[in-house]
């Protein structure tokens, strides 16, 4: 039975040993970031759909979850679009329940970009 792995996009995660072929496909072909001390990470250069496919074919069933751009918390729990959103094909950040669109957060969202750019 396939192992279920929950991965936060943009966060570090570990993987069981999957062999050099899978490692090479993930890191060289699909642009997954790897550091020995911290593990793996999906970032803006990662082919997310390809990486998820590779992991699934290696027996690791992946469930992706996005982080809130404003506060960094996990954004997917309780999202009304959970069923319709393909998280492997959308960009890496989203909005959490505390910063949901109903709360007119666009100003805060835009400011976060400026803050991160300067920081």
């Amino acid at each position, binding site marked *: 039975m396939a192992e279920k792995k929950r991965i936060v996009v*943009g966060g570090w995660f570990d993987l069981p040993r999957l062999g050099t072929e899978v490692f090479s496909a993930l890191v060289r072909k699909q*642009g997954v970031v790897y550091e020995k001390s911290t593990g793996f990470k999906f*970032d*803006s*250069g*990662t*082919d*997310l759909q390809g990486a998820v496919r590779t992991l699934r074919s290696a027996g690791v069933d992946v469930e992706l979850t*996005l982080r809130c*751009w404003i506060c960094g918390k996990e*954004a997917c729990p309780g*999202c*009304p*679009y959970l069923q*319709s*959103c393909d*998280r492997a*094909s*959308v*960009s*890496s*950040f*989203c*909005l959490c329940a505390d910063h*949901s*669109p*109903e709360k*007119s*957060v*666009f100003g805060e*969202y*835009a*400011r976060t*970009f*400026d803050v*991160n*750019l300067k920081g």
Partner: protein
Amino acid sequence: MWSEKYRPSRLDQLIGNEDARLVLSLWLSKWKPGTKAALLVGPPGTGKTTFVNLLARADGMNLVDLNASDVRTKEKLQRRMGEAMSTVSLFGERSLIFLDEVDGLAGRADLGAVEFIKESVKESQNPIVMAANDPDSDEIKKLSSSCMTVRFRPPPPREVEMYLREVARGEGLAVGDEELRALVIEAAGDVRQAINLLQSTQNAPREEGRGRYKDKDRTVSEAFNGFFGAADKGEALASLRDLSMSPFEKVREVQRSVVKSGLPPGAMAKALETVSRADLLIGKMMKAGDWRLLRYLDRLFAEELFPVVKGMGVKYAGQDDLPFPVLVRVWNDSKKVREVSVKYAAKAHTSGMSARSQDLPYVFALCSKKKFREDLERALGLDADPDLLQSYDRFLQKEAAR
């Protein structure tokens, strides 16, 4: 159009691809000669071109914008890019060189263009950004070793909803959560499409109720009227680009609207000349199978037709308001028209559809001459059965009389 009114004018007003925007902004701020170029990869409509334009603006840089599929050979690229790559202003101000659609180099011999780009990246005195839709093309794989690849993806639905709410707030609208979410799902990550859908729901009569934003005819009419009534070429171009319609239909609808417009003869001639050029462009595209030519269609209308029709009160001629009575017969798929078009297509080495929509209106008009009609009947083999011949002859005479 709200999609134009609410087009982002600053980097922080974009939504989605937050990490990609940050990485690229930092790359540009730290760029020095010898730094790798940036390669933006992602499906159309994810904001790559808009981002690069805003990036250059944010850094006060001059944007040198080239479409790679227009300049395929090394010599052409050298001519267009050479000066931009080696020139820095007296005050050290740099330009941002943007090569869009570099995957357009793939598929045919690129005649040294990819190697030239790879070399240029090392030597350029100005930063180079490239954009591509297809990350798997061979040319992109060749380029990726000398580039920092950044992926652009559609924004998640919640962020699209946030932007729609911002637009709704700007327009003073109260839209229900459920209706807004239906629009977001319908737009499938395309922000411009989401805004257009929102606008179409609000412009529709109230009594039509939910689902009215799916009214295709109204959207078509809005887009064409948006084009004819635009304030400038940019708005005209955006109106046509928002329109999801086959290029043949687009040209046909523009032609019908122009013919029905009552423009003065000089302007009418100029407008129809452009329509004719658009028709030739599509013919060339079909003949060569070169679908990239399609991108010039809207631009041709915006650059050449729009200045002629601007302020002339041209309106979209609705689907049921045909300009040429003869076209009614051609498009109504009557049995005889289909039969004649199939026979004609076989003789003229064209498709049945092309015969019906392009040739037969004129052929039918010429059938008012008895000699022409008889020659046509013989050429198409309509004279094989005397009874049928009589029936076809009556039909052709009737069409000619229209």
